[in-house]
């Protein structure tokens, strides 16, 4: 059988090229490795080598021809003992398409179900204890560590210093230096190490002193932790929690105050959780530590010291991906997370005095987003205000707005209003910082606007 020599694709984007010169002629005997011709791609001139042995029977494309399609036959090679008759049934043909067949689209499957309680209902008669968010987080870690020996906590000052913000208080004492580990200031290194340890079967909790410093490590959070499961065809799961305070603290300036919610929420392969209350903190951190996926857990330094109710339920775990109605209302839906929930609740209180009934949705999880709860609420109220500490452009509010466009467009009585930080790096000066960050009055004003109340 004579062999067809095809126009090769010599770059990932090449679809056609110029066959510039032939270095062999009909009748030449060639061995594998001989250079047959030169072709010009969009990027370079390349030599085409033969991988077969034989005699050039026919050259089908003349030197100097432009636009030769990839995979079209450019010459015929006769094998040992064959003569020209072997080429009789070979006709120059149009190139076969290079591109793979149009892929058939499939719908994204529903988010996988994880093995934590699917209900966030707190049973009647449950008693509560008063705890700070800080203590709730610590208890969540301690409880999970007691149950699962493969969990370790690593980060700057997490062990001997008891945490830069004292969230890991007492953990070194209880679990020892093998499982509560102080690192050097090497975020990129220990985030990557955490990913490797997770691949190796451990369950790391990587604490960033604040998420501002996770920018040093974001390559591992996204390229290594979030994408590897997919890239390995489902083999290489990465059960890891990246946690720490996110967003503005108090007067620590532009480099220490950023809200990264929208950044991480953009990434498929990550779960992004952002608790507001002590109850959220406890139940969601436990869920995050049980989740087989990388979870970015965004805490808030200003909430650490706030005391709230935590249900006294043994093994209290909340489902990731479910929002909570913090306050029911009928006139406008205020959607937020973390510190923003506090602003929303304060605003709802003020609005109530003004005769406007606001429903406050605490997202709890940003990715996967509980679109159902948001949409159902907006269908009821016909109005939505989003509240976040991040910047407005391509922020969480934009996403929530799109969710409502998709799910409740016909129910809207007013355009969605977004409350965000001002579109500037966070200033240090006390007065400017106040102006830059969102506050409850901003939320009130936005809600009134959607209600056409002024």
């Amino acid at each position, binding site marked *: 059988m004579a062999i067809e020599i095809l126009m090769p694709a010599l770059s990932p984007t090449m679809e056609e090229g110029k066959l510039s010169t032939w270095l062999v002629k009909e009748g030449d005997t060639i061995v594998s490795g001989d250079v047959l011709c030169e072709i010009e791609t969009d990027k370079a001139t390349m030599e085409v080598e033969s991988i077969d042995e034989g005699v050039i029977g026919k050259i089908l494309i003349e030197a100097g021809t432009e636009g030769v399609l990839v995979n079209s036959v450019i010459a015929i090679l006769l094998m040992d003992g064959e003569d020209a008759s072997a080429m009789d049934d070979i006709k120059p043909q149009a190139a076969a398409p290079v591109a793979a067949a149009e892929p058939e689209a499939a719908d994204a499957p529903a988010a996988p179900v994880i093995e934590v309680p699917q209900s966030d209902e707190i049973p009647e008669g449950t008693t509560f204890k008063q705890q700070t968010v800080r203590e709730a987080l610590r208890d969540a870690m301690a409880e999970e560590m007691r149950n699962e020996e493969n969990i370790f906590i690593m980060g700057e000052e997490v062990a*001997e*210093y008891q945490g830069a913000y004292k969230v890991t208080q007492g953990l070194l004492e209880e679990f020892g230096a093998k499982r509560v580990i102080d690192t050097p200031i090497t975020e990129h290194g220990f985030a990557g190490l955490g990913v490797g340890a997770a691949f190796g079967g451990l369950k790391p909790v990587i604490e960033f002193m604040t998420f501002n410093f996770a920018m040093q490590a974001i390559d591992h959070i996204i390229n290594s932790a979030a994408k590897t499961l997919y890239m390995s065809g489902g083999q290489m799961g990465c059960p890891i929690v990246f946690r720490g305070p996110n967003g503005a603290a108090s007067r620590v*300036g532009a480099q220490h105050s950023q809200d990264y919610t929208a950044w991480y929420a953009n990434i498929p392969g990550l779960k992004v959780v952002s608790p507001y209350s002590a109850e959220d903190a406890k139940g969601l951190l436990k869920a995050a530590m049980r989740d087989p996926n990388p979870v970015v857990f965004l805490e808030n330094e200003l909430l650490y010291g706030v005391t709230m109710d935590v249900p006294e339920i043994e093994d209290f775990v909340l489902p990731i991906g479910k929002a909570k109605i913090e306050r029911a209302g009928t006139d406008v839906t205020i959607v937020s997370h973390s510190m923003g929930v506090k602003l929303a609740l304060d605003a709802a209180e003020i609005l109530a005095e003004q005769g406007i009934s606001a429903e406050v949705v605490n997202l709890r999880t940003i990715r996967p987003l509980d679109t159902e709860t948001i949409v159902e609420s907006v269908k009821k109220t016909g109005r939505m205000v989003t509240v976040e500490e991040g910047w407005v452009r391509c922020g969480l509010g934009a996403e929530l707005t799109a969710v409502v466009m998709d799910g409740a467009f016909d129910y809207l009585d007013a355009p969605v209003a977004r409350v965000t930080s001002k579109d500037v790096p966070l200033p240090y000066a006390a*007065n400017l910082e106040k102006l830059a960050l969102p506050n409850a009055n901003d939320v009130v004003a936005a809600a009134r606007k959607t209600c056409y109340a002024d």
Partner: protein
Amino acid sequence: MAARAAPRKKTTKKSKVSGKIANFSESEEMKAYYDMLLIRRFEEKAGQLYGMGQIGGFCHLYIGQEAVVTGINMALTEGDQSITAYRDHAHMLAVGLDPKGIMAELTGREGGLSKGKGGSMHMFSREKHFYGGHGIVGAQVSIGTGLAFSNKFNGNGSVCITYMGDGASNQGQVYESFNMAKLWNLPIVYIIENNQYAMGTAIARASSQTDFSQRGVSFNIPGQKIDGMDVRAVYAAAEEAVKYARENGPIILEMMTYRYRGHSMSDPAKYRSKDEVQRMRAEHDPIDQVKMRILEGGLATEDDLKDMDKKIRAIVTESADYAVNCPEPDASELWTDVLIES
């Protein structure tokens, strides 16, 4: 499996602290004393203002480390740049910036070096070739290397002094920078201010190689360990290193130093003993060392030094008054300086 670093045997030979001490003239001795005392009094005042709620956020004091920036700046010439992290007030005083502008930045007022918008960790001065003031540990090292790159590019003969802490020197970008600095022989002096701790972490708990002067070995960058509590030793080393960097390329100076105060104002510093701090203060205080020489050498009397202290306190008090009474930035400043309008 990771485990907490235990005190380990050193496999490498420890570098000796360089014994080279500059012979200070009378005026150099007096200048070093003045400059260091100004830093100390300034920092004490900053600590006080923080306690009064006039300074917010973080505030990292340099008390104990004064000899480092003072000795180094005595060896610089006009045009040489410097860059450091967040423990930066002293670096700015040492390059000659007005204490008022620094203090007013600490209080977040319009008269601050960054108009109140940067805060204590983020201050800059083009005029004095001071490039910050960086809040992200290690970031200043790559940026400083870039300043040195620009010096070489422009052929301006300037050297960039790039300060980092012992903790910072474990960041990956430090080594990426070392490699490029040597590859292109950039005029840079890396100063590792080894004050023994990164927040609450003693060096041996975070560093496999605690001899920081040797951190450049695999890049062929020479390094020296210097007594950073003796301003004459700092000056002698800096003078040589700056000359070396100007002519040859990168060099590392590890400054053995100590901070007396906590990492920042909210650090109770329980990770070290009171004794340890007391011993450093009593036996190695950089300012006392000079004072003793001044008195013993008869360069000035006790009364002269008291007068000097009074003058310095007056300058510092004036800066504090200014910083507290200066108005906050105008609300319109919120929107300025985000981009350069074109």
